[in-house]
């Protein structure tokens, strides 16, 4: 998940600083929470600048009727200054003025609003305005701004907005949502048919990373629901999911989702053509060694076709000492010996001897 969160955080910071995201790609190597902290500090550095000037303008605005202030904001201030002022006004006053502004102008302001002030303002706007702003942002393809706002929307507004957004907009916005803890609840508002359509869109529009990120951020029950609805997709789509995951090394994000599947669903996944490809399986094993997700991986291995299991055993048996040691320690930590022993049986004699010689293996609980 961290790879995808890192990508999303980099996109958000690039937007904040108005630089090409590719130039900040190096940030994806840093801990995601550090990048988020940096972004929050950058928000403060940018938005807390020149508060005296803004407060003086806001002071003038306060004595005007909301309709007059809205007229001035639109005709004279422009979206940047209007948004800056909205951040200095009492949220209720800002909402009064926004209420009098054309939606298209407000949508252009949204990009410039201090993210720390969004919750207070959104809570005071009528659903009707919120819905119209969201649709303008969607039409403009401004998913990053939508991602900043969506976590603050009331259910009543969400229920009007969600059916009007395209599946790709849902994926792209969910990917960069600023309050991921809200995502599970938002997913809950979508019926199974809509979620299946979103999954289909992920396959058709090469948006699997976005879909995996959304599923990862959704809380327990909703994550399992997405996993299950994904497993019900036709083989060709699931195969494209595995290929995309392998191509971008996203096993760390996908395996915890796969582990939520029922036995039958897991078998359907295990039978996919992509999971017979030695290159894919090799990357998968190395991904598991790097992330320690043995508990998520070994149940899948158990239901892989024999030829694929042999490939996994071969790759695992060829791991260097550190990799093999990591395997043994990971298996021991989660007591997964029952799952790994059949795999060891498939290894070459030399590899098996190396595994058997490992301290973790020798000290495993008997039985």
């Amino acid at each position, binding site marked *: 998940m961290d790879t995808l969160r890192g990508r999303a955080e980099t996109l958000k910071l690039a937007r*904040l*600083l*108005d*630089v090409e995201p590719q*130039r*900040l790609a*190096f940030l994806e190597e*840093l*801990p995601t*929470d*550090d*990048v988020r*902290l*940096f972004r929050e*500090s*950058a928000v*403060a*550095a*940018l938005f807390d*600048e*020149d508060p005296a*000037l*803004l407060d*003086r*303008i806001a002071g003038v605005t306060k004595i005007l009727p909301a309709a007059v202030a809205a007229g*001035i904001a639109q*005709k*004279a*201030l*422009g979206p*940047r*200054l209007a948004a*800056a002022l909205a951040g200095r006004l009492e949220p209720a006053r800002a909402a009064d003025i926004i209420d009098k502004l054309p939606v298209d102008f407000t949508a252009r302001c949204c990009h410039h609003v201090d993210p720390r002030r969004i919750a207070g303002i959104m809570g005071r706007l009528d659903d009707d305005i919120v819905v119209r702003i969201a649709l303008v942002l969607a039409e403009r393809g401004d998913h990053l701004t939508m991602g900043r706002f969506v976590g603050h929307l009331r259910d009543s507004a969400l229920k009007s907005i969600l059916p009007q957004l395209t599946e790709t907009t849902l994926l792209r916005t969910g990917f960069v949502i600023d309050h991921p803890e809200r995502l599970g609840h938002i997913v809950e508002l979508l019926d199974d048919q809509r979620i299946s359509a979103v999954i289909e869109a992920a396959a058709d529009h090469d948006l699997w990373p976005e879909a995996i990120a959304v599923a990862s951020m959704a809380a327990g029950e909703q994550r399992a629901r997405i996993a299950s609805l994904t497993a019900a997709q036709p083989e060709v789509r699931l195969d494209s999911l595995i290929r995309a995951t392998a191509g971008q090394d996203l096993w760390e994000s996908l395996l915890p989702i796969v582990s939520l599947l029922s036995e039958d669903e897991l078998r359907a996944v295990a039978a996919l053509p992509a999971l017979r490809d030695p290159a894919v399986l090799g990357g998968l094993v190395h991904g598991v060694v790097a992330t320690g997700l043995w508990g998520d991986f070994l149940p899948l291995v158990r239901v892989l076709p024999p030829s694929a299991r042999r490939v996994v055993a071969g790759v695992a048996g060829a791991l260097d000492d550190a990799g093999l040691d990591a395997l043994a320690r990971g298996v021991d930590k989660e007591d997964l010996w029952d799952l790994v022993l059949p795999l060891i049986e498939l290894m070459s004699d030399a590899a098996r001897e190396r595994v058997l010689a490992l301290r973790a293996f020798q000290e495993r609980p008997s039985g």
Partner: protein
Amino acid sequence: MSAEELALLRAELDVPLPDGFTELDGAQALLLAQALRRARERRASGLHESVEDALTLVPALTREPVRRMLFR
């Protein structure tokens, strides 16, 4: 060594850097510091331009006093 560039980035951010950022090399820290500085400058000049635009709507006779009040 990237100590100088990291110090520059820290100064632009105006708060201590998150731990992971100390791993950045000099070019990366400099890129971020410059991007942050440019973003601040753009925002400041954008605000001032917007205020000047707004002042054109104020009657000419009172424009200067209002400008002085705002930029005092």
